[in-house]
């Protein structure tokens, strides 16, 4: 069965033209930026200051997050309004490791307890903080915490065939519940203030220029690997079933596939990617707090993907970087009060005039000119998937 499906359709290359361009740009950036930061004199016009390195690193983690959304929204039709929750969980796992690394250098100098616990007059470490002094354990948790949540949540939701809008609304309720929970001081995650004031990571000073460059390059690496993984998934037989589920879930069921299992795997992989993005985000930004769980954040991720082009992977990453660059540019200048007008206008304009996003529209245009070229990614039917 699986053989016949793969034989009947021509298998696109693992990366395709745009994928190769994307990876080339990524490599170029991750070589150029460190070189321009280290080897060029600070007064030179092309020097990249360290704060810009961290800013770019943040964009790259956002791009990875957008990629994780595109995997499930673009290819499975799951519009998760709670993807920010997985991002934040990964971030908290990393933040907990970084908190334990502070040790006696905190304000209260307690060797074991983070400052906020001393402040709350806690006597010992809660059980769920055990092991976070070891990096491998924390790294495992970066994957497991979001992955497990996605597994449990998805198992319930997909098994009972909660789809479309209903799924979006309950994912939103999930991240909202987590937002409320993490705001509580009693939860043991720093409450309102979250986790911050980090000192070092794996023994390297987190503020040092070198560490920041390494984190930047790691973010680029994670984005590149994440992209290759997603490409690998969506062009495999598994990925074809996912697209079929997106376009006609019932028909896939009738053909004998357990659609819920396919969706669950994609959902968990996507959550883990988001977790990794969060884990790379936290050391570069220096703080993680409950606002990352806010439903508005999760919706904003969706618009990155929509701007870049849903179901194109490259587009998701591009959209994340573009929108966030625009956000940084506009919120820092005199136009700051108008940023929300622009962001809101962007939401409306993209859905009305650019329903396939930048990359999707480009693919359409190229397809018209060269009708026989193979099409990277899986273009979405013009009217959008059935929901």
């Amino acid at each position, binding site marked *: 069965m699986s053989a016949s499906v793969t034989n009947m359709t021509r298998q696109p290359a693992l990366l395709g033209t745009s994928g190769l361009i994307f990876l080339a740009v990524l490599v170029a950036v991750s070589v150029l930026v460190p070189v321009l930061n280290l080897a060029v004199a600070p007064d030179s016009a092309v020097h990249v200051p360290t704060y810009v390195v961290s800013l770019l690193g943040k964009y790259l983690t956002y791009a990875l997050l957008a990629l994780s959304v595109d995997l499930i929204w673009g290819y499975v039709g799951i519009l998760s309004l709670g993807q920010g929750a997985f991002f934040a969980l990964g971030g908290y796992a990393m933040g907990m490791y970084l908190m334990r690394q502070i040790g006696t250098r905190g304000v209260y100098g307690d060797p074991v307890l983070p400052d906020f616990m001393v402040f709350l007059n806690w006597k010992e470490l809660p059980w769920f903080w055990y092991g976070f002094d070891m990096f491998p354990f924390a790294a495992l948790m970066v994957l497991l915490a979001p992955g497990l949540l996605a597994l449990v949540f998805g198992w319930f939701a997909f098994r009972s065939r909660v789809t479309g809008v*209903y799924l979006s609304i309950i994912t939103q309720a999930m991240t909202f519940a987590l937002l409320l929970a993490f705001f509580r001081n009693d939860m043991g995650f720093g409450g309102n203030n979250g986790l911050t004031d980090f000192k070092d990571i794996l023994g390297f000073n987190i503020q040092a220029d070198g560490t920041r460059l390494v984190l930047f390059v790691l973010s680029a690496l994670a984005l590149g690997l994440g992209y290759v993984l997603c490409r690998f998934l969506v062009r495999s037989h598994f990925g074809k079933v996912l697209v079929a589920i997106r376009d006609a879930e019932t028909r896939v069921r009738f053909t004998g596939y357990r659609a819920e299992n396919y969706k669950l795997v994609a959902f968990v992989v996507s959550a883990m990617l988001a977790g990794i993005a969060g884990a790379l985000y936290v050391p570069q930004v220096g703080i993680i707090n409950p606002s990352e769980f806010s439903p508005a954040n999760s919706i904003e991720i969706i618009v990155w993907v929509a701007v870049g082009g849903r179901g194109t992977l490259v587009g998701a990453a591009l959209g994340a970087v573009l929108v966030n660059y625009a956000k940084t540019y506009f919120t820092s200048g005199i136009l700051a009060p108008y940023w929300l007008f622009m*962001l809101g206008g962007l939401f409306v304009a993209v859905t009305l005039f650019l329903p396939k996003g930048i990359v999707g529209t480009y693919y359409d245009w190229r397809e018209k000119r060269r009708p026989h070229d193979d099409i990277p990614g899986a273009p979405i039917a013009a009217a*959008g998937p059935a929901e």
Partner: protein
Amino acid sequence: MTSSARLFRLPRVLCAALALLFAAALVQRVEAQDISGPLAQLTTNKYDDTEAALGALALSGSPAAAGIVSALADGKLVFGGTPPRVFIEGAGGALIDPLTMQPVTDAPAVKPVRVNNRIRRAIDAASGALSLVSPDAVKRREAALAVGRSRDEAALPALDAALAKETDPKVKSAMNLARASILIGKEGITPAERIAAVELVGAEGNQDALAILRSVPESAAPEVKQAAAAAIEGIERNLAIWGMAQNVWYGLSLGSVLLLAAIGLAITFGVMGVINMAHGEMVMLGAYTTFVVQEVIRTSYPGLFDASLLIAIPLAFVFTGLIGVLIERTVIRFLYGRALETLLATWGISLILQQAIRTIFGPTNREVGAPSWMSGTFDVGHLAITFGRLWIIVFALMVFFALLGTLRLTRIGLEMRAVTQNRRMAASMGIRTNWVDAMTFGLGSGIAGMAGVALSQIDNVSPNLGQSYIIDSFLVVVFGGVGNLWGTLVGAMTLGVANKLLEPYAGAVLGKIALLVIVILFIQKRPRGLFALKGRSIEA
């Protein structure tokens, strides 16, 4: 704060007063109203005489007594002339006759009646006692309750005397209760008397009664203790039921707020299938309409303030309804059938509306006042019910039934249902489906605006007002079952009551989290909500 402090201070003073009264009553019977004797005593300016005069004044029942005692407390009671008379020193040193309260024309040279600590205590006692025999029934009742709380045996004989004279049934029962409260702990009374007292206190059924019953002495007869235990159990059961009822009331109140917030969404989302993320902003616009209406009234027509909400309701409906029609015509009509894209576009609209309001009115909370008929409280049994909450529940139900009636009974309602059930067939029958779409969306938005008027009374009117309701609103509609107004009603009330019943056990935040989890799990069980529309399609 000050009034409660006064209440706690009162009993001690009052007992002293009653003891004094009792003593005074034995020695001399002063003719009611006639207080010339005590007044004469005051002019001797001797502490003993002053104290005796205070006791007599407290018992006299004269309407002038309270004024005289309070003047003495303030150092405004003076005496002088031949023969010496007592006056009250008014504003600017003018002398006032204490009996007639008229200014005195031939004012003699005067000096104040002396006061020391002993007299001050007597003044306190007298003013306390005066409130027990005060002509104001409310004050008498308050004094009786204070005696009951103090449970001082010394006050018992005087209380008996006051009881004999009392005619007001409410005050009388308060005095009886006070007497029973004292008797329960008193030594040397018969078990039958004590049981009667236990029963009287038990019938009161509040927290105070509970405390009194728990203090039945160890030495009491077994049947007394049994009676007390039974009474305690009864009261506790009773209080638990009332506590539950109070929580249910709070829950219904919260449920009506959820209903108001969700009911417009039940139209735009439930009937039309449009995921309107800007719904919360429609509520917010309604609240700001109320603010603007009140501002205009404050500056131009201050007399109309009590009617401000009634004026704001239709204005908010029309204003937000028009905005809704505008949004539908310019954005949403291009996105029908693409639910998730609509979600993104309307989210964008919500950001624009929020920022617009922030630009016009500023980011801070705006003050929206409550008309007089919205404030105040009344009691039903042990329930405290505020008028504001009551009106919001009434308003929510009125809006609900008005909407139900519109959909069921009017032509536009019929057309709306026809278009949502079978758009092409409706169009073939000559219904202008575009126009109906715009009207339906406008109706949903307008209702959200009216909800905003009500919510401006209980929430901060800020640009973020809508954000706090949007998630709850969607949960209510999804929980109740999309496309079913009754489902929305039941969903809102269930979630409201469940939230308030969870709160005492889990706390406000955990209760809310628990509720979200419960709703998420519930949707797994019934993916189409409580009242799912029955259909045979495999993909709704």
